[in-house]
């Protein structure tokens, strides 16, 4: 089920809210049970067969965390149990996500044509597997005690607001909220506003820029031009930001409505002044996960320079692979690994001294090029698009179609760039203090417009659902 769907907005969510708030605040267990049932129903929508996988993951990780804890209490290290848990979780993820990729790679390397069936990816598997692993690692490191109640652990892993596209919530960040959480009118209101902003981001700009990018990508070679290719790449850059940050806003907003406080996942990444800065602002829950559970255990930066470079490349190779089972994603990850190494050891100090606008342009050009690798179906197609963007093999620098695209989209592209920064939200906050009624009108307008678009649009999933 999608957040941006009529069935979620006008049936599922209102029913869950009514049932949840009909239960008095003191019966938190009953409220948790409502959320758990709702989350499992939400997950089973569309792919009921994979509900088994979710329930399995809940019981398996619940049981193994207790095993690790008990073994450590008996004087053992818990390492074998940790390894077993890690293998099973990664095996499930690998089976669904990487089996086809491995078979394709094997077939192309050996020249064989072994037949296989690539299964459809259980939605959100990468997210909930990483949440389960963070819990297991934290229990192993004794950062948290294992949850004794399987229903509470089940709620942590399956909580529908963040279940299918993050943010990746660490158990320790919500452990207390599973036992006690505040649900106030103010918090509910803040959550609802955040949710509607997220919905607006997804349904209005993300879908609009998505359509623009699709139009450019689908152009025949004869109609392509350097500027047209850049328009497509910029459109995708805006699409993925509004799409994914819109989803995160909806997830955080929904969480708030039910009393949960999730950590932020985005901090205006397109105002970054360097690649390092960009990754401190983009998908923060994923970068935080890799930093804590891969980069630091590998030694982080407290090692020799060659080892540090290797650590960075491992982390970024894995980050790329997490996003998708294809070489273009691996390349995209390594691209950032290399750039971060260059920034850290070679050009970082010069960039820091450059004028602010140079820093922004530098960061954004790298990010836009990165999204070309990310959005292309294959590495070859990414290289073709980049060639055109840099004038290699492009039939023209600019043509009639480019002028048409610019004339029909330039204002919205500029608006998209402006809205992706912090200013509009700062202005909204000020307006909220001065004229709350006007703010309500704005939010209501966003909701009405989004609903109208949803009714007349086709099925349009979030980009990050495929991860």
């Amino acid at each position, binding site marked *: 089920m999608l957040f941006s769907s009529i069935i979620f907005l006008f049936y599922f969510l209102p029913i869950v809210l009514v049932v949840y708030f009909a239960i008095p605040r003191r019966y938190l267990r009953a409220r948790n049970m409502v959320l758990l049932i709702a989350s499992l129903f939400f997950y089973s929508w569309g792919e009921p067969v994979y509900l088994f996988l979710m329930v399995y993951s809940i019981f398996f990780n619940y049981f193994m965390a207790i095993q690790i804890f008990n073994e450590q209490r008996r004087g053992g290290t818990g390492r074998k149990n940790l390894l077993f848990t890690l293998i099973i979780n990664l095996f499930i993820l690998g089976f669904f996500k990487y089996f086809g990729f491995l078979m394709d790679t094997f077939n192309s390397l050996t020249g064989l044509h072994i037949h296989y069936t690539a299964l*459809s990816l259980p939605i959100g598997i990468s997210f909930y597997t990483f949440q389960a692993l963070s819990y297991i690692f934290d229990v192993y490191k004794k950062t948290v005690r294992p949850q004794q109640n399987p229903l509470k652990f089940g709620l942590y892993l399956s909580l529908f607001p963040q279940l299918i596209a993050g943010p990746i919530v660490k158990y320790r960040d919500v452990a207390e909220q599973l036992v006690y959480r505040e649900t106030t009118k103010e918090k509910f209101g803040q959550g609802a506003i955040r949710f509607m902003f997220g919905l607006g981001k997804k349904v209005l700009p993300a879908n609009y820029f998505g359509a623009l990018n699709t139009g450019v990508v689908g152009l025949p070679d004869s109609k392509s031009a350097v500027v047209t290719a850049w328009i497509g790449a910029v459109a995708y850059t805006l699409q993925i930001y509004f799409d994914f940050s819109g989803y995160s806003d909806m997830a955080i907003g929904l969480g708030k409505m039910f009393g949960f406080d999730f950590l932020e996942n985005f901090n205006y990444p397109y105002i970054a002044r360097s690649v390092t800065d960009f990754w401190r602002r983009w998908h923060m829950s994923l970068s935080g996960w890799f930093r804590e559970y891969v980069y630091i255990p590998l030694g982080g930066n407290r090692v020799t320079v060659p080892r540090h470079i290797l650590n960075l490349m491992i982390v970024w190779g894995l980050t790329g692979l997490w996003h998708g089972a294809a070489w273009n994603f691996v390349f995209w990850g390594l691209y950032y690994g290399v750039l971060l190494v260059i920034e850290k050891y070679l050009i970082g100090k010069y960039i820091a001294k450059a004028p602010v606008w140079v820093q922004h342009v530098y960061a954004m050009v790298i990010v836009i090029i990165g999204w070309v690798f990310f959005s292309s179906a294959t590495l070859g197609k990414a290289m073709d698009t980049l060639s055109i963007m840099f004038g290699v093999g492009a039939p023209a620098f600019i043509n009639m179609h480019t002028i048409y695209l610019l004339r029909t989209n330039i204002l919205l592209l500029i608006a998209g760039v402006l809205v992706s920064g912090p200013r509009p939200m700062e202005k909204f906050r000020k307006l909220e203090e001065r004229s709350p009624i006007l703010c309500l009108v704005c939010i209501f307008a966003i909701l009405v417009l989004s609903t109208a678009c949803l009714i007349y649009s086709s099925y349009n999933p979030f980009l990050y659902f495929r991860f």
Partner: protein
Amino acid sequence: MKTIVKNSSLILKIILTAVLIIFLLVVYGQANAKDVPMSTIEKALTSSTDIQQMHKCSSRELMEFMSIDASQYKGFIYYKSKNALGVEEVLVLKAARGQSLSGAEDAAESRIDSQITTFENYGPEQVAMLKNAIVVKKGQYLFYCTAKNPDKYEEAFNHVI
């Protein structure tokens, strides 16, 4: 005591692993489908069904009638009745590796529901056909058919994949 705890834990781990493997084998077995070109599927449907009596639709028509964006998928075959009051239609959609088909499945189900709403007061024959419609997922493919004998179409589809 320690040995009993260790053994029961080991047994539980073996059971959990076995359950997982059985589930994966079942899911894989059910989803098993050959990766064949759309043209092969179309040829099979053309040779063993009445699909040619229908109109072959473009991606624009796929969007118009099924609300499915063809550019999101690897390929499609969409035929629709030539008759304005006909509800017969056949759709085969191929997803990219690992791509979910649940959205397309929802679209097919919505199409059936909306067609039933349209015809329910004056088209009993059409409604009966719609209620007998088939929507199945197999591997990377989604198959949807509303026809007098949808099983015949499904059989041709199943045979080729």
